[in-house]
């Protein structure tokens, strides 16, 4: 690998840009592929397909084997509600290499003391979400139980490309939430995208266990998209 190729890869990763590196295994010849622009040839097209699946791997091209290494930006997790569950959830998500933002206009909740080192926003959730680059690699989870905070976040998330939208709350709370969102103009089909009650059913009780169930559900959704 040329030093300039390494530098370009490190810079792209630091900036969260989608990029792929194609390497010919026979001799190490290499080519960087910008995944944000339409592919210019067959190798580029294969790289774009692999990026959607988030799957690096070898491809055969004119009798030669190229390895496509896909460098997708990290998964983004937006947590609405700086509540107790958000504390272990933000820590665990950071351990997984995800980019975490916690939104809560209630400054007593969204404090540096409660969330050391976590990116916090005290804007209203819909405004805060509009200020974040929500992509097809972003998950949005609402945890406040308060329609005043959760609903604007969910409405914004439903209009975004987020691959996962989850809302904490009992089945009864969730049914009432769906009624409100339907009244706000979202179709029942679109509302199916909301995972509610959020998380895999693993009998979680403590905030940390609930965080595990939420993360497991998000990972399942992330990897299901690749299958």
């Amino acid at each position, binding site marked *: 690998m040329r030093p300039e190729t390494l530098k370009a890869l490190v810079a792209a990763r630091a900036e969260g840009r989608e990029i792929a590196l194609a*390497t010919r295994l026979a001799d190490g010849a290499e080519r960087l592929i910008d995944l944000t622009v339409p592919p210019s040839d067959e190798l580029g097209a294969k790289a774009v397909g692999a990026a959607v699946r988030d799957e690096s*791997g070898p491809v055969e091209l004119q009798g030669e084997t190229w390895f496509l290494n896909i460098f997708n930006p990290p998964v983004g997790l937006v947590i609405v509600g700086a509540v107790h569950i958000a504390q272990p959830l933000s820590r665990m998500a950071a351990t997984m290499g995800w980019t975490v933002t916690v939104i809560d206009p209630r400054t007593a909740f969204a404090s540096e003391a409660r969330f050391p080192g976590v990116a916090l926003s005290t804007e209203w959730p819909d405004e805060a979400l509009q200020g974040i680059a929500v992509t097809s690699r972003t998950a949005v989870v609402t945890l406040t139980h308060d329609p005043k905070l959760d609903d604007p976040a969910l409405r914004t998330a439903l209009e975004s490309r987020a691959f996962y939208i989850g809302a904490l709350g009992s089945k009864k709370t969730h049914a009432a939430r769906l009624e409100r969102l339907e009244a706000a103009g979202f179709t029942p089909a679109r509302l199916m995208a909301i995972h509610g009650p959020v998380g895999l059913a693993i009998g979680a009780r403590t905030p940390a266990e609930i965080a595990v169930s939420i993360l497991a559900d998000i990972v399942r959704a992330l990897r299901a998209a690749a299958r």
Partner: protein
Amino acid sequence: MNDDRALEQAAAWLAEGRGVALATVVKTWGSAPRPAGSQLAINDEGAFVGSVSGGCIEGVVAAEAREAIRDGKVRTLSFGVSNERAWEVGLACGGQIDVFVERIG
């Protein structure tokens, strides 16, 4: 998929003037411990960061990487249950992997 800091460490070593090689999992079969794209950065003293397996073959890969730093040639190493050397170094999961090793620079 590339959630470790192998590339960043490789760049840091390079900036220090060290010889550096990069090992990348390029193909897997069966229950391989790390997916294709996983990387290990190795310097000329044999220090390494990242992983290409669950720790089963890093030692052998690091030794080959130091060889690559010396001769500048790329190589693809195969490990698996059918491979005698893999038996020695113990890819205990029963998976098979190919690892591409290249010098940087």
